[in-house]
């Protein structure tokens, strides 16, 4: 026996990237153990708003439905999180859904997270191994290091940390915490380390690590529990040392 037979969503919608946002309310039948996405699916099946008017179905992004792809992030009752992992029973009613404000809206709850991929390019968050000949197996990684590096590798580029960061906004060009932590991940890798300075230079470029003001919201909201603020401090240390090496000269500035 459910105590309530309907649940209410108040959704901030937008028809296309250039039109104005508006709110629309929906009442949908309650089922046990619903998550926000199953609520959105209900609306998709029967796109009628709370006034009984037929409307366009609400659009959102999703993929894995198990909190590993990062596509379904949105602002739920004021905080950014994954809608696939947001259980209706744990949310206050009415449930307010908004697109993440840090990113341009594509439509309704779908945002364009391209700036995060640009940021990964800026810090060269990959390991270049392609060459003219087989390089053979790479060096091994100490187990202890692998353990913490594995934690960093869980990032799914979901954007929640950027949304929560007060310095990631349209007045600043700060790339945000995720890419900084990824630079640390690839610099920790024994092969990746060979290009460590390239990533540090990326972090020192415009919009890089110096945009961080230590509000530390990122580490509180990251659904993967990534130690983002430790990564930022580690990369602060590494970029500072790199800057000194660059200026005074060093044979270890690679």
């Amino acid at each position: 026996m459910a105590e309530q037979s309907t649940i209410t969503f108040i959704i901030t919608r937008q028809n296309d990237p250039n039109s104005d946002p508006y709110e629309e309310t929906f009442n949908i039948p309650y089922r046990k153990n619903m998550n926000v996405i199953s609520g959105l699916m209900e609306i998709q099946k029967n796109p009628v708003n709370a006034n009984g008017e037929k409307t366009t179905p609400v659009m959102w992004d999703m993929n894995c439905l198990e909190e590993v792809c990062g596509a379904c992030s949105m602002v739920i009752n004021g905080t950014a999180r994954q809608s696939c992992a947001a259980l209706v029973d744990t949310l206050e009613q009415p449930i307010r859904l908004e697109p993440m404000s840090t990113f341009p809206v594509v439509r309704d709850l779908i945002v364009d997270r391209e700036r995060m991929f640009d940021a990964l390019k800026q810090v060269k968050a990959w390991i270049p191994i392609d060459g003219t000949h087989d390089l053979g197996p790479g060096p091994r990684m100490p187990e202890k290091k692998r353990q913490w590096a594995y934690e960093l590798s869980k990032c799914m580029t979901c954007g929640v940390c950027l949304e929560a960061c007060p310095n990631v906004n349209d007045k600043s060009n700060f790339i945000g915490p995720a890419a900084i932590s990824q630079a640390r991940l690839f610099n920790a890798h024994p092969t990746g380390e060979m290009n460590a300075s390239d990533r540090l230079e990326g972090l020192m470029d415009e919009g890089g690590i110096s945009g961080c003001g230590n509000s530390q919201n990122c580490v509180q909201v990251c659904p993967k529990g990534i130690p983002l603020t430790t990564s930022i401090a580690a990369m602060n240390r590494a970029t500072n040392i790199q800057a000194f090496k660059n200026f005074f000269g060093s044979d270890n500035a690679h």
Partner: protein
Amino acid sequence: MAGQREYFYRRLHSLLGVVPIGIFLVQHLVVNHFAVYGEESFNTAAGFMGNLPFVLLLEIFIIYLPILYHAILGVYIALTANYSLKNYGYFRNWMFALQRITGLITLVFIAWHVWETRVQIGLGNAEVEYSLMEGILSSPFMLWFYLIGVISTVFHFANGLWSFCVSWGITQSQKSQRVLTYVTVFVFLAVSYLGVRTIIQFAFGV
């Protein structure tokens, strides 16, 4: 390299907050605290500082230019942040906001304070003397203005030490950052005591 100018400017901003501005702040409050030991003591201590060789050069390069740089970039930094305490009311986010708010309060306070003391002394309208501060702080409005100004400046300095240690990669682990929070709270209380005690001395003569 040209793209790294912003990085350099921000690191310089952070460094100047501690060296020399932060060091100057603590020195300034320690010297002023001599007022508590009597008018004579204060005049001797302040007179010593005021009669250092090349005092104008020292002031310009250790105080005015660094504060001007730190303040101008600081206002820009404060205005380019979003404040999100409603949805993200975590302790550090509060400190983040307070760092910026106290920076702005400090700017107003320092501007007025320098105008009222150093500029007037430079113009020959006043002397570096116990009675100058005694006169200023005899007004209740000024008393509150100075109390708020000093506490806000010291908060900004103490919390700034915390973020300085992160910006320079000194405190990397969560644990060291937590311990540094306690240390900077202590710095805040200790240095605030110095400042507030001195103000009470000037205002009430006790």
